[in-house]
């Protein structure tokens, strides 16, 4: 019992080894099938395991003893391209025997003794020809059915007759028809040789494979699942002002666009690196001053205090100042930019011209053309206890806009009135207090 187990293990191990060897030999997969049939009997060939690609040495080792005895005439049918797939595709193997394009080939294989190399390693187009030339010691002679009938074959020497067959190209003929014609040529040649009474060895193969499937044992790409969505771009860090080592004011914006008449278009200050000198931090007020290399100076002043009605601390962005070339424009933001002091303020659009949260402080006409447009703006000036993360962002957009509230109010009022009326009508009844079906019917006087 123990021995059989060891044997089994040994067999399993050898199988695994063979399998891995077989797998490793699969790497270069250019292969061509090779069919041999002969009027004389051919030595048997051990059928190779599936997927095994025979090498040239194997073919040579097989053919050597065959050619060693006596003189042979070898008919080499060399199709321009041949792969196993052509045989399966056009060979009528799916139960449609009548559609086969290789009828003569099949008949030849059946009637003569035949040997097949299903997969012969392909290195170069002339490999087989060269091999046969070397084995036979005879140079190939080009032949075709018409010339062959006039050719006399000398059976005292080795002969190598080479019949070239075309493969499908972009010609008018379909592939099947072409292969059928090739088969006809094969049949004709065989019949001519047979009528001559010459014993032959016939080989049918391809000059190169028609289909090469590239396989690689080692996966080239990373195997595994990955998210299909595009990798999110890295988010730039916020502008942080530190006071006594800890972050005190934080600002982040996707764009800090400013437009000053005299310069064309918008200048995005967020693309530049600011200098934070002049910024200050205290428990009740914070100021962030950003000095940019382009000469712009943008400063944000915030203040915080306790409001007794709501009983909590609120902060507001009191003023935003933009300074350029000695001219300062000041904007008041305390009306719209505010939040509880524990939170940050965030707004998609902070500007001074459309649904403006920043209102001009002075009435200087020359400054009225200045434009500020901060996009995806988030600021926090107090309560930065948890490092460089913003606290909860109190957004400037509310859940319901004022317009939605107005609509809801009016609509609900209408609904209420309508329901009231509906209820009233639905509980109207005909009075039946004085109904007396058995009494006399009332008489209506005809005159006043």
């Amino acid at each position, binding site marked *: 019992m123990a021995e059989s187990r060891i044997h089994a293990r040994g067999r399993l191990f050898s199988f695994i080894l063979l399998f891995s060897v077989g797998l490793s030999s699969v790497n270069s997969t250019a292969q061509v099938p090779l069919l041999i049939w002969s009027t004389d009997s051919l030595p048997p060939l051990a059928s190779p395991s599936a997927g095994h690609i025979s090498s040239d040495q194997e073919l040579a080792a097989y053919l050597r003893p065959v050619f060693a005895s006596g003189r042979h005439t070898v008919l080499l049918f060399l199709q321009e391209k041949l792969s196993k797939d052509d045989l399966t595709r056009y060979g009528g193997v799916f139960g449609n025997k009548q559609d086969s394009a290789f009828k003569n080939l099949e008949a030849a294989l059946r009637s003569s003794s035949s040997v097949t190399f299903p997969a012969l390693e392909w290195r170069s187009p002339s490999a087989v020809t060269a091999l046969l030339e070397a084995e036979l010691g005879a140079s190939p002679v080009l032949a075709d059915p018409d010339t062959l009938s006039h050719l006399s074959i000398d059976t005292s020497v080795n002969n190598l007759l080479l019949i070239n067959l075309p493969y499908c190209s972009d010609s008018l003929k379909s592939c099947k028809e072409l292969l059928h014609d090739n088969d006809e040529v094969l049949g004709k040649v065989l019949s001519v040789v047979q009528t001559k009474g010459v014993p032959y060895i016939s080989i049918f193969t391809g000059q190169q494979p028609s289909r090469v499937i590239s396989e690689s044992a080692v996966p080239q790409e990373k195997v595994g699942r990955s998210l299909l969505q595009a990798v999110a771009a890295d988010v730039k860090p916020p502008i942080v002002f530190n006071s006594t080592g800890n972050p005190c004011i934080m600002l982040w914006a996707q764009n800090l666009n400013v437009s000053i008449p005299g310069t064309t278009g918008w200048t995005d200050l967020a693309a530049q690196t600011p200098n934070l000198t002049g910024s200050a931090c205290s428990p009740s007020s914070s100021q962030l001053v950003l000095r940019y290399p382009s000469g712009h100076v943008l400063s944000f002043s915030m203040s915080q205090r306790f409001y007794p009605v709501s009983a909590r601390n609120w902060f507001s962005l009191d003023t935003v100042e933009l300074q350029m070339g000695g001219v300062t424009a000041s904007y008041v933001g305390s009306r719209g930019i505010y939040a509880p002091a524990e939170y940050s303020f965030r707004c998609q659009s902070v500007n001074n011209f459309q649904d403006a949260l920043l209102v001009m402080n002075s009435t200087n006409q020359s400054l009225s053309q200045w434009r500020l447009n901060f996009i995806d703006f988030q600021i926090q000036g107090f309560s930065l206890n948890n490092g460089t993360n913003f606290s909860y962002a109190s957004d400037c957009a*509310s859940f319901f806009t*004022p317009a939605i509230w*107005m609509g809801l*109010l009016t609509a609900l*009022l209408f609904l209420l009135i309508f329901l009231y009326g509906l209820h009233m009508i639905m*509980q109207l009844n005909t009075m039946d207090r004085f109904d007396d079906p058995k009494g006399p019917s009332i008489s*209506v*006087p005809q005159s*006043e």
Partner: protein
Amino acid sequence: MNGHAILYTGVTLAFWSTILIVGICYTIFDLGFRFDVAWFLTETSPFMWANLGIGLAISLSVVGAAWGIYITGSSIIGGGVKAPRIKTKNLVRYVSVTQRIKIYRILVKVFSNSFSGTTPETIGARNYQAGYSMFGAGLTVGFSNLFCGICVGIVGSGAALADAQNPSLFVKILIVEIFGSAIGLFGVIVAILQTSKVKMGD
């Protein structure tokens, strides 16, 4: 439970549970600061309030008048079968009720201008006052006319039936109706007072 009761309890339940759950969520997440009545009153347009006032004034007055006529009318029709003389006398009184809808003229006078601001600062306090006053005036005159109309209707119904029985009773019952009409008149006077100093515009 009949269909009405189920419907009304369902609607009430949905309403209060929505409010309760929204309130609880706001409290839990410390977002109570988002519930801002002042924001609601300043951000909603004074035009909405003014127009709601006008709408309610007209519609509620009409409801009152209609309700009164319906009550008296059904009595007159019933009583008039046996005593056809009652019909003309009793319907005259309803002209006076509908006169009260003349409040709309006063409201339109206030409303003939409009303002051009968009933010609370640019709209100005006077326009907000105008909006709220007109809403209040509309409610005042609307509801007082509503109840006046119902009152006069019920009294008129009794008067019509009494008149059908005994023609001498008509004049005495008319006095009770005058008290009822006075309610509506009080409403109109108060509404005029509310909108007297009010002006919309820039």
